[in-house]
C-alpha cells in the first residue's frame, strides 16, 4: 500500500478512528498490529507469514538469550537469529544474483553450468525489517537492552506500518518504551503529523514522480549517449528524485506515526548541505548508516585499530551497505565509491592543517558543493542499470565521449532539473543546522495553512506515472 494512494487515505482514516476509541491499550495495540499486517498484505498476503516468522524467531531467540548462561549457548542462539534473518534476506534478495554470478565464475573457469534460475519474488521491505529484528537480537545479546515486555509489543515494533516497508529502521530502545504506555496523538502531534504526511506526499508525487523522474528516466533508460548537458541534467534530476522520493517517504512515516502518538527518528537532515562524506552519512538515511556504524563498523574495530584497519573497515562496511541496496554490482560500486570517499576524507583530514579558513561560511558552502558533486557521481552508478550505461553517462558529463551529437533534452526538462536542484541546495544549506519544525514554528498559522493547501492542490492536480517508492525495491 503506497502512502500516496487513495487506499492509504481510507486505511489511515479508519486506523485513526479505531486508535482513538476508548478501548484498553492492549486492544488498541492489537488493532495497530492487525492494521500493520493488513498494510503489508496489501502487497502480497502470503508474505505476511515471512514477517511473522522473522518476528517469532527473534522473539524466541531474545527470550532464550536472557536466560542463557553459557557463552556457547548465547552464541548459538545469536547464530540462529543471524541465520534466519540473513538466510531469508539472502534467499529472497540475493538468490538469483548469487546463482548467476556463480555460473559466470564457473564459465570463466571453463565449466559450463545451466542452473535453473528460480523466479524469486522479492518481499517488499525485507531489507528493513530483517535489519530491525537483527538489531533487537544483537542489542539483547550485547546487553545493551532488555527484551520486550510482551510478544504483542515486539510484534508491533517489527511491523509498525508507518515504517515497515522503507524505514526509518527503528531501534527497540526507542520504540518499545512507547508501547508500554497508552498513547494517542495530542493536538500538536496530530496537526504536525498531518502536515508532514502532506509534505511527504508532495515531495514524492509532485517533485520526484511528476517533475524529476521523467528527466532522469530519459537519460538513464535510453540507449542513446546523452550530450553533456543532458547527462548533468539527468544526474541532477536523479539526485533530486531519490532525495524527494525517499525523504518524502520518511516524512510520511514520521507524520503517520505522530498521528498515532508515536515518535520515530529522523532519517534525513538536509544531506545535500553536507560538508564532507562523514557528514553526508550523518544526514542521509540516518537510521541505516547508524545501523551500519553500530552493528558492523564498530564491531569490526571502527577506527580504533590503526589507519590501515580503519580503511579496511570502512571499505567492508560500505561494500555491504551498497550490497544491501540491491543484488547488483552497480550498487556495490556505489557503496565502494562512498567507502573510497570516506577513506579519502580521513586521509585528507590527517594532512590538512586545521586552519580557521575551513570554518568560514563561504568555504564550507564551497566544500558542500564539492561534496554534492562527488555524491552525484555516486548516484550515476546507483541509478544506471549497467556499468556500461553508468560510464556512458559519466563520460558525457565530463566530455570524455567523442562522436556526434548525443541525446539532448528539451529546454523545459533541463530547466526543471536544474531549477529544482537550484531550489533544493539552498534550502538544505539554509536549514542544515536547523530543522523543518523550527522553520514552520516561525511561520504564522495562516501561512502554514496556505503551504499545506498549496501542496494538496499541487498533488491533486499533478499526475506523473504511478511509481513505487524507490526504496521499496530494497
Amino acid at each position: 500500500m503506497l502512502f500516496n494512494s487513495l487506499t492509504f487515505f481510507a486505511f489511515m482514516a479508519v486506523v485513526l478512528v479505531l486508535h482513538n476509541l476508548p478501548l484498553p491499550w492492549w486492544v488498541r495495540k492489537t488493532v495497530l498490529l492487525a492494521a500493520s499486517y493488513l498494510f503489508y498484505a496489501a502487497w502480497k498476503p502470503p508474505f505476511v507469514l515471512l514477517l511473522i516468522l522473522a518476528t517469532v524467531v527473534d522473539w524466541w531467540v531474545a527470550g532464550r538469550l536472557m536466560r542463557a548462561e553459557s557463552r556457547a549457548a548465547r552464541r548459538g542462539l545469536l547464530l540462529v537469529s543471524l541465520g534466519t534473518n540473513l538466510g531469508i534476506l539472502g534467499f529472497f534478495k540475493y538468490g538469483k544474483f548469487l546463482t548467476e554470478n556463480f555460473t559466470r565464475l564457473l564459465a570463466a573457469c571453463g565449466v559450463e553450468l545451466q542452473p535453473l534460475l528460480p523466479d524469486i519474488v522479492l518481499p517488499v521491505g525485507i531489507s528493513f525489517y530483517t535489519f530491525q529484528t537483527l538489531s533487537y537480537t544483537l542489542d539483547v545479546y550485547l546487553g545493551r537492552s532488555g527484551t520486550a515486555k510482551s510478544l504483542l509489543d515486539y510484534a508491533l515494533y517489527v511491523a509498525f506500518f508507518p515504517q515497515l516497508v522503507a524505514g526509518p529502521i527503528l531501534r527497540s530502545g526507542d520504540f518499545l518504551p512507547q508501547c508500554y504506555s497508552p498513547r494517542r496523538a495530542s493536538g500538536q502531534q496530530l496537526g504536525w503529523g498531518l502536515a508532514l504526511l502532506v509534505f511527504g506526499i508532495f515531495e514524492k508525487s509532485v517533485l520526484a514522480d511528476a517533475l524529476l523522474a521523467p528527466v532522469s528516466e530519459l537519460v538513464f533508460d535510453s540507449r542513446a549517449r546523452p550530450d553533456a548537458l543532458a547527462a548533468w541534467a539527468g544526474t541532477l534530476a536523479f539526485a533530486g528524485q531519490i532525495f524527494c522520493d525517499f525523504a518524502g517517504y520518511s516524512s510520511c512515516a514520521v507524520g503517520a506515526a505522530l498521528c498515532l502518538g508515536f515518535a520515530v527518528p529522523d532519517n534525513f537532515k538536509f544531506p545535500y548541505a553536507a560538508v564532507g562524506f562523514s557528514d553526508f552519512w550523518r544526514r542521509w538515511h540516518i537510521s541505516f548508516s547508524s545501523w551500519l556504524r553500530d552493528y558492523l563498523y564498530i564491531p569490526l574495530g571502527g577506527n580504533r585499530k590503526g589507519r590501515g584497519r580503519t580503511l579496511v573497515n570502512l571499505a567492508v562496511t560500505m561494500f555491504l551497505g551498497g550490497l544491501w541496496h540491491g543484488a547488483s554490482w552497480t550498487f556495490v560500486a556505489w557503496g565502494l565509491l562512498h567507502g573510497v570517499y570516506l577513506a579519502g576524507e580521513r586521509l585528507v583530514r590527517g594532512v590538512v592543517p586545521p586552519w580557521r579558513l575551513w570554518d568560514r561560511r563561504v568555504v564550507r558552502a564551497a566544500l558542500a558543493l564539492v561534496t554534492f558533486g562527488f555524491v552525484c557521481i555516486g548516484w550515476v552508478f546507483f541509478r544506471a542499470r549497467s556499468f556500461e550505461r553508468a560510464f556512458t553517462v559519466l563520460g558525457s558529463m565530463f566530455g570524455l565521449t567523442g562522436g556526434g551529437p548525443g541525446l539532448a533534452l528539451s529546454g523545459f526538462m533541463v530547466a526543471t532539473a536544474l531549477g529544482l536542484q537550484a531550489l533544493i541546495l539552498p534550502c538544505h544549506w539554509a536549514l542544515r543546522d536547523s530543522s523543518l519544525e523550527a522553520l514552520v514554528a516561525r511561520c504564522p498559522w495562516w501561512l502554514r495553512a496556505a503551504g499545506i493547501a498549496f501542496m494538496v492542490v499541487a498533488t491533486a492536480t499533478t499526475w506523473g506515472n504511478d511509481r513505487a517508492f524507490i526504496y521499496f525495491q530494497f
Partner: protein
Amino acid sequence: MRLSTSNSNERLPEGPWGRTHLLALALVVVSLGGLELFWRARGHVPSVVEDKDLWCLQRERAAGGGAETLAVLGASRMQCNFVPQAFLEKCPGYRIANLSVAGAAPMAALADLAAAPSFRGTVLCEVTVPGLLPDVADAQQEYVDYYHSEWGWNKRLGRLMRTAIQENLTFVQPYLSLHRVARGLLQRGALPPPYFVLTRRDRYRAVDFAKRAPWAGTREEAPDGPAASTPRGPTYDTMRISGQEWQARLREIEAQVRRIQGRGGRVIFFHPMSGGARRLRESSLFPRRDYWDTFAKSTSAFTLHWEDVPAFADFALPDEVHLDYRDAPRFTRLLADELCARGALRPRP
C-alpha cells in the same frame, strides 16, 4: 541500544493546528472547485484514466463469469468502435469484459483466457493479420503478467476509488496536470483544448473527431488516445512471415481456441475495418487470400471479415481505422446483428 538521532516529536511546532488545517481545507476546496469550474467552462469533461488496474477489473469480470461472459479482445479499434451498452441492447444478458488495449495486438490476452480454467464464455477478438503474427504475440503480455502478479484487493479498491473520482472531476486528468499545462503555456502560449477521447469505466473510448485537430501529433500531452498511443512492439510495415512460420502460428492459435471450446466456450475472430492508405498497405503486405482466408479455413473458431458485410463499408473512418463516437453504437449493433444472424453468437447467453 537507542539511536542518538533526534525525532520530530521533540521539536513539534506549536500553534493552532485545528484552525490551520481547517483553513487549508477551505483553501483546497475553493482552489480545486475553481479549477474544476474553469476547465468545465472551457469545454473539458471528466474521463476515466486508462491504466493496467482498469484492465484488471475487466479481466476479473472475465474470470468471474460463466457462459454469459463475453470477453472483448482487440486493440484500439475495438476499444473505440465497440460500445458495450449498444451491444447489450441487441444481445441482453451478456456480461461484457472489455480487454482490448490500444496499440497492442490481443493474442497474449487470448492465450491467457485459454489457460484460465474458469473462463467458459465467448471471446470476441478483433484482430488484423499483423496482429496474429509471432512478432506481436506478447504485445499485451505486460497486462496479463500484471494481473497475475500484482493485482489484488488493495489495487482493486484503489482503482474503484479513482474511477469514482475520475468520472466526476475534470482536473484530475493527466493532460490537465499543472506542470503539463505550464509547459504547454511556455511552449505554445495556449491552454490545452478539450481532449478528443473520453474513456468510460467499461473501457470504451468515445472518439470525437470534431475535436481532434488540435491534438494531432502531440503525443506527449495526450497520454491516451488512438492517435497518440504508441504501438507496442514492431509495426506491421516491418513484419514478415514465411509460409512455414505462418502455418505453425495458425496451429498455435488453434490450440488456444480449442482449449476454450473444450470448456464450452466460443471464439469469434473479427477483422476490423480500415480505409484509405492504411487499407491499401495492409492488403498489399498481407493479401486477404493468402493470410486471412487461410487463417479462417484453418481455425474452428468463427471468423468474420468486415469486407463480407457490405453495410460496414458505409462507415466513415476519419483516421482510416477508428469510428467517430456518433457512429460507434450503430456499428456495434450491426456487428451484433451479423454475428447472431450467422450463428456465431446467441442473442442471449
